[in-house]
């Protein structure tokens, strides 16, 4: 019998916990050439800003061991194109939509949230707090709990109440649990964890940074233990807050790891670049692993790594 894969993110129920990560699935259209996007839990669209944005110069990517360093600088066509073209297309194909928003300031985030939550078919808004900001080399929203809370509060107060707002956090911050708590205090309905880790690769031939921006975001399997650790820590501190876990997911087994650490859904990111049918493969692998273990409901697994030894899964249906 096939297991019950349904999962909840705040008041939204998804058919299964496999979603795409922002910036790794376009708007769903590119991936739809390889599989039916209505089969996965949801598609998270690439972070959108109010205006079109040209992003950073090339080279924007470097391959690193089990990872990828990238700096695209949020290139995108702006929110009008998302609302008029991409979102209606995704919904017409039966896809569930998580919309990621990025802004230069709390006001821009709020305006985006208002316009997006007014559009039909938006299941969830994800607030990308790690927006590359040309003035500050950076991500001050992600690093400073007060700034993050200010943005989340602005988004929450401009978003229709039935659309959950999730704050997306980066792992390399001084106090992740404090940051998460500040976002929840500012009425985030949940958290997305984690964004890419700051890093650099130097081209051994030119002895210059391998991506034009210098620093880039490291993603892929290389960061998975960091991401799982972050989800585990934050779930331990805030067990009632739903988490979309992400970072280096490549197989069904990786999804199990995140669920056990405390994620309610798991986003597939960089591997989409390497394997455009990864999402459906991972979903199939997850289903097989659940059957093997005699697990009938995904929901029973969430946070299992936090339970005392013996209460967690041990081979069979064990203590569920």
């Amino acid at each position, binding site marked *: 019998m096939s297991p019950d894969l349904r999962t909840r993110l705040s008041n939204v129920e998804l058919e299964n916990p496999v979603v795409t990560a922002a910036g790794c699935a376009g708007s769903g259209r590119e991936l739809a050439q390889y599989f039916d996007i209505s089969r996965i839990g949801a598609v998270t669209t690439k972070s959108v800003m109010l*205006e*079109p944005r*040209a992003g*950073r110069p090339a*080279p924007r990517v470097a391959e690193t061991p089990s990872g990828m360093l990238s700096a695209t600088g949020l290139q995108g066509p702006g929110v009008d194109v998302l609302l008029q073209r991409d979102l209606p297309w995704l919904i017409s194909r039966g896809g569930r939509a998580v919309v990621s928003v990025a802004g230069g300031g709390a006001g821009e985030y709020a305006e985006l949230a208002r316009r997006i939550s007014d559009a039909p078919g938006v299941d969830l808004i994800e607030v990308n707090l790690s927006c590359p900001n040309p003035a500050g080399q950076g991500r001050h929203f992600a690093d400073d709990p007060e700034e993050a809370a200010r943005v989340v509060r602005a988004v929450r107060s401009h978003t229709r109440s039935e659309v959950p707002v999730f704050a997306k956090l980066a792992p390399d911050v001084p106090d992740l649990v404090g940051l998460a708590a500040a976002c929840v205090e500012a009425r985030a309905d949940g958290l997305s964890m984690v964004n890419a880790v700051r890093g650099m690769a130097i081209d051994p031939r030119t002895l210059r940074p391998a991506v034009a921006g210098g620093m880039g975001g490291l993603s892929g399997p290389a960061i998975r233990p960091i991401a799982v650790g972050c989800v585990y820590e934050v779930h331990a501190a805030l067990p009632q807050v739903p988490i979309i876990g992400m970072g280096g997911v490549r197989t069904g087994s990786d999804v199990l790891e995140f669920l056990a650490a405390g994620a309610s859904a798991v986003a597939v990111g960089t591997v989409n*670049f390497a394997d455009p049918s990864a999402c459906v493969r991972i979903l199939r692998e997850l289903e097989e692993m659940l059957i093997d273990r005699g697990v009938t409901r995904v929901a029973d697994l969430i946070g299992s790594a936090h339970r005392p030894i013996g209460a967690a899964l041990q081979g069979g249906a064990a203590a569920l």
Partner: protein
Amino acid sequence: MSEQGPIQIRCPVLTVRRVDAYYAITVVAPGIAERFRSGQFVSVAVGGEQSSTLLRRPFAIHDVKPDYGGTVEFLFAVRGQGTAWLAERRSRDLLDIVGPLGRPFPLPRDPVNCVLAGGGSGAAPLFPLALSLRRRGCRVDFVLGAASADRVFSAITARRVAETATFTTDDGSFGVHGRVTDALGTVIEDARSDVVYACGPMPMLREATAVASAHGIPVQVSVEETMACGTGLCMTCVIPVVGEDGITRMVRSCMDGPVFRGERVRFDDVGTIPFDALGAPGWKALHDGGAHSDAIDREAG
């Protein structure tokens, strides 16, 4: 999912062989073979399923044959660990391949005179193109160049399929001493060419575009830009291209290209974000005058 779009399949390797300074791999991939049009490429996973080498490698399709159920051949040079791994593949090994990707070369409706200019392994996609053009009754002339004799790809085939074939090498070890674009103008004049198709490194494409423009004929260029995915998702392979509306956009080489009208590519600005490109700091000021201080403030905020 669609009859026309790319597919992802695990293909058995038929042969791996040395061709001059390069390697050519032929795989059995009937679905890709039947969808293929000249100028399109495949992206290949390297290093196996648990590889630490995550990103696919893009390769232009060099040959497609209906025998053995539909085979596809692509050419590569060993440059790093991914291509070194590929060179070690043997017959019957499986390769995970996505393709055919990208926009193909547009073909002329009428039989016209076409000159095909290629640099190094960039010549590979010009061979199936030459066959397509010949089938349409076009005259085909080749200009192929490389650093040295062993890097000029498939000179014999070029001589066989084309009306004329001109070769250039940087070191003078084969053909004319010089670059492809040094010889291109003469070939255009001698062959009374109507269109140029060019494939190779960016500086060569820029020069080829300049030569074609000086002769008043259009040029189709196939660009080589670093790609992480090849499927349009990652936005890493962007170059500045002027649209029909006159607006410069950072477009994806993989999906919006790799073939572009040469005149539309802003070669001098490749590797930068031009000030006036859509979404660049200056574009708003340029296109609706005055509102720009607003945009800048918001970025900085």
